[in-house]
C-alpha cells in the first residue's frame, strides 16, 4: 500500500520569504501524525500544498500514491480537510452546507451526517451565522469526516472546542485511524498531540526539526534533575561537567538538564548536603521548548 502522504524536499517561498524549507515527511495508513509548531512556523503552508491550493516552489508531494498537483481532484475525493481558518457559508444552515458538499462528493452514506451531528451535539437546522465558534468548528469537523476519507488533514481541529468536544474529536480521529485512515493533525497544543499522535513532527521557522514517536523523542531528550540543597550552592562547577547541558535556578534549588550518564553529576552533588533529588523524563512541552530554543538539533 502506498504511503498516505509523502513529502519530499518540499520548499515554498513567497518572494524572499521562506514558508517551508526542504521538508520531507511520510505518513502511513492507520497512523496519526501530530504536526507541531507555533503559528507561523509553516504548518498551514505545508497543508495547503498538500491540498494543491498553493504550489510548492520545489519538491514533490504524493498523496495516497498520487501526484498532489496532477491528481488533486482524485485525491480530494478520498481526503477530508479541516482548514485552520474555517470560513463557512453564513447564510446556509449546517444541513444545507453539508448536503451541498455531500453532492459535490457524489453522495455521502445515508444517516452518516446525522449520526456525527449527534455525537458532536450539533444542531443542523440553524443558520451558520447564528452558531457559536465552537459549533462552527463542529460543522468543519463534520464535513471532514462525513465521507470516511482515507486521509484526514486537520489544521488545529480542536482550537475552538471545549474539553468534552475535544475528546469527541479525538475519538473520531482514533476510530478513523482504527479503520486504516491516516491522520495528519496539526496543533500547537502539546498535550493534545501527546494524547492522540503515534508520531510527532516538530516544525520551526519552516524547517522540520524532529520527527519521531513521543517516547523516542522523550528517550532522546536530556533528563531533568532537580535538586534542593541544605545551603546555597555555586552552580558554576556543575556547568563544567560534560553531560550537563543546562543549569538553572539559584541558591538552594538548581535544575540540571543531563544528556548521558548522570555519574559525574551525582559525584559533584555528593560534595554538598542534598535535601531532595528528583530525576525525571521531560514532558513533550519541555522537549518542544528545547527544540524551539534551538537546543534540540543535536539530541
Amino acid at each position, binding site marked *: 500500500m502506498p504511503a498516505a502522504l509523502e513529502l519530499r524536499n518540499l520548499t515554498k517561498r513567497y518572494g524572499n520569504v521562506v514558508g517551508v524549507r526542504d521538508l520531507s515527511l511520510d505518513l502511513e495508513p492507520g497512523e496519526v501524525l501530530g504536526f507541531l509548531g507555533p503559528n507561523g512556523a509553516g504548518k498551514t503552508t505545508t497543508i*495547503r500544498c498538500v*491540498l494543491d*491550493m*498553493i*504550489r510548492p516552489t520545489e519538491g514533490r508531494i504524493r498523496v495516497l500514491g498520487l501526484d498532489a498537483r496532477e491528481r*488533486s*481532484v*482524485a485525491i*480530494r*475525493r478520498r*481526503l*477530508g*480537510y479541516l*482548514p485552520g*481558518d*474555517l*470560513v*463557512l*457559508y453564513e*447564510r446556509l444552515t449546517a444541513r444545507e452546507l453539508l448536503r*451541498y*458538499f455531500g*453532492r*459535490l*462528493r*457524489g453522495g455521502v452514506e445515508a444517516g452518516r451526517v446525522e449520526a456525527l451531528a449527534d455525537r458532536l451535539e450539533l444542531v443542523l437546522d440553524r443558520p451558520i451565522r447564528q452558531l457559536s465558534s465552537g459549533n462552527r468548528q463542529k460543522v*468543519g469537523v463534520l*464535513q*471532514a469526516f462525513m465521507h470516511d476519507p482515507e486521509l484526514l488533514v486537520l489544521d488545529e481541529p480542536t482550537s475552538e472546542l471545549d474539553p468534552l468536544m475535544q475528546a469527541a474529536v479525538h475519538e473520531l480521529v482514533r476510530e478513523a485511524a482504527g479503520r486504516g485512515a491516516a491522520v495528519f493533525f496539526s496543533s500547537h497544543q502539546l498535550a493534545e498531540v501527546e494524547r492522540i499522535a503515534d508520531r510527532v513532527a516538530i516544525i520551526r521557522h519552516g524547517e522540520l526539526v524532529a520527527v519521531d514517536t513521543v517516547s523516542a523523542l522523550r528517550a532522546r531528550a536530556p533528563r531533568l534533575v532537580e535538586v534542593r540543597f541544605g545551603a546555597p550552592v555555586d552552580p558554576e562547577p556543575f556547568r563544567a561537567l560534560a553531560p550537563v547541558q543546562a543549569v538553572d535556578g539559584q541558591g538552594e534549588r538548581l535544575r540540571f538538564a543531563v544528556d548521558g550518564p548522570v555519574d559525574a553529576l551525582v559525584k559533584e552533588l555528593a560534595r554538598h548536603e542534598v535535601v531532595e533529588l528528583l530525576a525525571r523524563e521531560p514532558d513533550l512541552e519541555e522537549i518542544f521548548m528545547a527544540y524551539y530554543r534551538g537546543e534540540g538539533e543535536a539530541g
Partner: protein
Amino acid sequence: MTDIAVRMVRDARRSLAWWAIGVAALVWVNVIFYPSVRDSPEIEGFVEDSPELMRALLGGRESLDILSPAGYLDGQVFALLVPLLLLIFAIGHGAGAIAGEEERGTLELLLANPVGRRRLVGEKLLGLVGLVAVFSAVTWLSSWTSGLAVDLGVSAARMLAATVAAGLLGLLFGALALAAGAATGRRGPAIGVPAALAVGAYLLMALAPLADWLEPWRVLSPFYYYASFDRLVQGIDWGASAILALVTLVVAAGATVAFDRRDLKL
C-alpha cells in the same frame, strides 16, 4: 456537475429579486410615458436642436426618429438603461463568483471537495449565464407587458432580440469580471477592470461616428455588436450574437488558465 452553478443562482435569489423589481419598475415607468411624449409638440424640436455629441452619447443616431415606437423604446430603455443595469449586475456577480469567495475565505473549504479549478470556473460561468438569463427574462417581460399597456406596437419577438443581445453583452462583461477575479483573487480588480473596459468600449462606440480616425476601431467595442435599435427594427442578428458569445467563451478559457496556474490567496 451543476451543483456549484445552482448554488450560485440560489444564493443570489434575494439580490435577483430586488434587481428584478428595480428593472421592471424602470422599464414600466419609461414605456408608460410613450403616449404623452409622442403627443407633446416640444419634443421634436428639442431633439433637433440638441448637440450632436449629446445625442451620440445618449445612444441616439442622427437619422433616428426618437418618436417612433422602436426609437422611443430604444432611447428610453435599451440603448443605455438596460445595458447599464445588466453590466452592473453581471460584473457584480462575476466578481463575486471566485474573487468574492476567495476574499471571504469560503473558497478554501469549497476546494477541499473534489472539484477541479477548471470545473469551478465553468460552473461559475454557468451560474452567471443563469443569473443573466433571469435578469434578461424580467427585462423582456416588463418591456412586453408595458408595451402592451400603451399599445406601443413593437413586437415581442423584436423585444426578445434586443433583450438577448443585451444579455450577451452583460454576460461578456460578467465573464470579464469572473476572469479578472480568477486571475487575481481580489474583488477590486474583478470589478474595476471590466467596468473600465465597459466605459471605454461604450465611448468608443458612441464617439466613433464623430471622428473619422475612430470609425474603423469601433468593431473592437462589444457595444458595436449590441446595436439595440437595429434589433428592435430587424430582429435577432445571429452573427453579432455569435461574436459576443465566442468572445465570452475565450475570456472564460483565459480565466481557467489563469486560475489553474496560481496559488490561492487564502
